[in-house]
């Protein structure tokens, strides 16, 4: 896996494709064209794409689209999917309301 991204690489111009309006991220409703364009805007890592377009940031947290987005970005960069660092994995892994996330069990250490 490439942890350092070589930004000097020339990936060419953004060329429109017939299926650019295909929805990829079902939760945040982001299309293939938007993802491809984001790569040409300089978003070369999954983390950047996520922050730029919110792909995989919706309710399901990328359960369905993570692999699809990775494939599109990798193809646009001309690398294999394995070379692309996946998004950071962090808690909470599942949709959870803020009030529940904030409701931690309190343990009385002196008991």
């Amino acid at each position: 896996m490439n942890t350092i991204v070589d930004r000097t690489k020339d990936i060419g111009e953004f060329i429109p494709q017939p299926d650019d309006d295909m929805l990829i991220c079902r939760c945040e409703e982001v299309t293939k064209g938007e993802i491809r364009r984001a790569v040409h805007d300089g978003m070369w890592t999954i983390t950047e794409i996520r922050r730029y377009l919110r792909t995989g940031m919706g309710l399901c947290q990328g359960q369905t689209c993570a692999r699809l987005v990775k494939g599109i970005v990798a193809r646009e960069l001309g690398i294999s999917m394995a070379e692309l660092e996946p998004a950071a994995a962090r808690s909470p892994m599942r949709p959870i309301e803020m009030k529940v996330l904030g409701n931690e069990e309190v343990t009385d250490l002196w008991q």
Partner: protein
Amino acid sequence: MNRIENHPILGEPQKTEKVTFCFDGQEMNGNMGEPIAMALKANGVMIHRYTQKEHKPRGIFCAIGRCTDCVMIVDGKPNVRTCVTPLKDGMVIQTQDGVMPKTEANEVERSRV
């Protein structure tokens, strides 16, 4: 009916308590404790919500609580995954429109925007 009445391997379904619930103002029947999504499917309901941006219909997709496509407003609470939430008697279930209930007022609001 979408319910399997007799299955060559699993036999007849277990007898369960029947409950009534309300879907968008309509009274429907289902089995106590089955996922809300299954009760809706048995009643022929396909659309669970309309998306926020594109206003496109969505329904059951993964059925195991992962994809969150089947979320609806249940007893006033939005974004409830209906495929993993058990049905209870008297539940009020509404088609979700963005994060709001799908009502005419919301429709008008949306078309104005």
